[in-house]
């Protein structure tokens, strides 16, 4: 059963579409583009979606949603159901209509082969760095262990780079479910999956609360597929069938209430708290993330200014070779996405230079912004009148002194307003570095929202913190601009 990427609405007279959301970036065995037909999808979630659509008398239509945003998309009605290896959690149960679980997985640790004998549990990872996918049960487990055991939790945006960073030594272990770990093990060498189970969880489908009647119909279909072996055939086909599944199926068919997670105390989950209590619980971590954002932005901007001044000076005063080289750099940076640059710097160069995430983020932002800053400084330098420069030269100042004492200070005043604008932009662009596992304000807010099952309070808090950082900066810039206002007479 294959879903069709980007399929349009149903034709007149054809069955109504059954819109289901998933993230093909997650890949097999869940949802991935068919290697032989890239416009078609394959995976066990694709087949389950087909099964559900058929039972409803409808045609499956795939909606491509990034994994982290599937809950929000379902809540706002972009699709009727989310199916993409979505975990059953208290937050999802509180904010969405969740189907019965159709697969049971185990959270397992993966470590480098050399550590396999020494590490048995999270307690053995005190002082070590452990990676996982953000917004998952595994991340919640690691956050608890961070406090209880003293390990360092690192969250990733995808489930591939935790393992590649494990192999190159950036992290010491990966905690993810057995399906993801075994899939990665088939494609990569240099690590081992430990047999111990850290926690047990389940994959479910998620619908908006308004779709509870459809959820009940889907639950009936899933139970039927468990009874008649359809689901087993699908899971066997994708090599994820194991002895845990018959036990789960028996409990689901018997109507037993299956707990969302086993092995993680979810009684203190923010999803079970009042919104305001949850906000109070998360506020300290949001404030810590704000510190990361402001420190990263200030250091990156300082470096970007220094490099930008160098580039601008080289382009104005340098020889033809220097000018061509610097212009090429500026055009290369401006012509490629910053996300690509961050990926290349952190992951692409990892074999040669293993930069820590914060350092890579700092350098990546600085190198990107330096290109834009240099254009501001270059145009500001070129805007200083020739008369000012000639007056300085006739007084016997060297070209270097003309630049540092006359041209540079005047150009700085011209550049101040756009520089401030860029700094405020950097405060916000710094959220991009979460792809390098840096836990800054936007990423922390996303984690908060995922765990809470709502973006309203996390969004308001996040916006307030960004404004608390950017408004004083804008006020300071206005003050400096008025003090150093360029003479008009």
């Amino acid at each position, binding site marked *: 059963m294959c879903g069709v990427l980007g399929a349009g609405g149903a034709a007149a007279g054809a069955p109504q579409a059954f819109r289901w959301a998933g993230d093909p970036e997650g890949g097999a065995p869940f949802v991935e583009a068919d290697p032989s037909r890239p416009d078609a999808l394959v995976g066990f979630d694709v087949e389950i979606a087909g099964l559900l659509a058929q039972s409803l008398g409808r045609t499956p239509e795939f909606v491509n949603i990034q994994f982290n945003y599937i809950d929000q998309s379902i809540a706002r009605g972009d699709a009727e159901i989310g199916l993409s290896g979505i975990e059953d959690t208290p937050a999802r149960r509180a904010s969405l209509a969740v189907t019965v679980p159709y697969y049971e997985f185990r959270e397992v640790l993966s470590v480098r082969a050399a550590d396999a004998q020494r590490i048995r549990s999270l307690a053995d990872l005190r002082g070590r760095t452990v990676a996982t996918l953000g917004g998952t049960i595994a991340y919640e487990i690691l956050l608890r262990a961070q406090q209880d055991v003293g390990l360092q939790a690192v969250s990733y945006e995808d489930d591939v780079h935790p393992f590649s960073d494990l192999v190159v030594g950036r992290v010491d272990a990966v905690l993810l479910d057995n399906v993801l770990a075994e899939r990665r093990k088939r494609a990569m060498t240099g690590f081992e999956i430990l047999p111990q189970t850290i926690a047990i969880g389940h994959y479910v489908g998620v619908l908006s609360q308004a779709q509870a009647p459809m959820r009940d119909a889907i639950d009936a279909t899933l139970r039927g597929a468990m009874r008649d072996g359809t689901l087993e055939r699908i899971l066997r086909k994708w090599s994820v069938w194991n002895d845990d599944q018959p036990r789960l199926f028996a409990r689901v068919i018997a109507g037993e209430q299956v707990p969302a997670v086993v092995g993680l105390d979810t009684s203190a989950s923010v999803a079970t708290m009042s919104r305001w209590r949850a906000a109070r619980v998360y506020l300290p971590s949001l404030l810590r993330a704000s510190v990361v954002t402001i420190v990263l932005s200030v250091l990156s901007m300082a470096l970007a200014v220094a490099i930008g001044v160098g580039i601008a000076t080289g382009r104005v005063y340098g020889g033809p070779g220097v000018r061509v080289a610097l212009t090429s750099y500026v055009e290369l940076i401006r012509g490629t996405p910053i996300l690509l640059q961050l990926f290349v710097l952190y992951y692409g160069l990892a074999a040669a230079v293993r930069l820590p995430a914060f350092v890579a983020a700092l350098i990546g932002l600085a190198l990107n912004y330096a290109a834009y800053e240099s254009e501001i400084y270059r145009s500001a330098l070129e805007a200083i009148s020739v008369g000012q420069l000639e007056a300085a030269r006739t007084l*016997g100042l060297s070209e270097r002194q003309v630049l540092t004492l006359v041209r540079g200070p005047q150009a700085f005043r011209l550049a101040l307003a756009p520089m401030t604008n860029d700094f405020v932009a950097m405060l916000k662009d710094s959220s991009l570095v979460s792809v390098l596992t840096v836990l800054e304000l936007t990423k922390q807010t996303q984690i908060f929202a995922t765990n809470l099952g709502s973006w309203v309070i996390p969004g308001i808090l996040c916006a307030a913190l960004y404004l608390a950082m950017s408004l004083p900066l804008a006020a300071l810039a206005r003050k400096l601009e008025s003090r150093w206002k360029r003479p008009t007479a």
Partner: protein
Amino acid sequence: MTAADTSPILTIDQLQLNRGARQILKGVSLTVGRGHLVALMGPSGSGKTTILRTLAGLEPFQAGRIVIDGLVFGGGEASNRATLSQLRRKVGMVFQFHCLFEHLTALQNICLAPVHALRVPPHQAEQQARALLTSFGVEHRADALPRELSGGEAQRVAIARALAVEPPVLLMDEPTASLDPERRGELGALLRTLTGQGRTLLIATHDEDFAGEFATRIVRMRDGVVT
């Protein structure tokens, strides 16, 4: 008219300057005695300002020779860094629009070159700058930015800035262009004081009355030659 030492401090000999295919100066020769105020006059485009800019080391020239207070240089040396450095100890320039540094106060404008080009200690440079401002009657404007100065005040600060490095020759481009009659008279008196102190002034001007009243000699130009 000030009685001046007649020994030449400035000699221009067959100066030729081209901009692309266009000949701007076509073999200008000129001698200026020490302590003189010489006015270069002529229609726009005759080459007056170009001569001042060449003497200030702002325009390279193709042929001819310039001698200023013993410093001799020809066309090929005009862009030589060492020659330019020596030249700028000999010649100060006051631009038509003053070109005061917009980010610095009047006092800072005057102190900049002594401190950074001549390595005069800052406190000493400031004392000398204040003395210059006082002698030009604008000491009360020491802390004003250029945009806060009147045209006459800005010109006096510009003259003080040029004189702060104590050049024996001062060049001025259209010094009366933005002055009312009263200020023109004050400027003339100030320039007479400077020539009385032994400085040599070469000014480019369209102002016949001013030149007639204050210059020791008028040199007329047309189409890049002295007539």
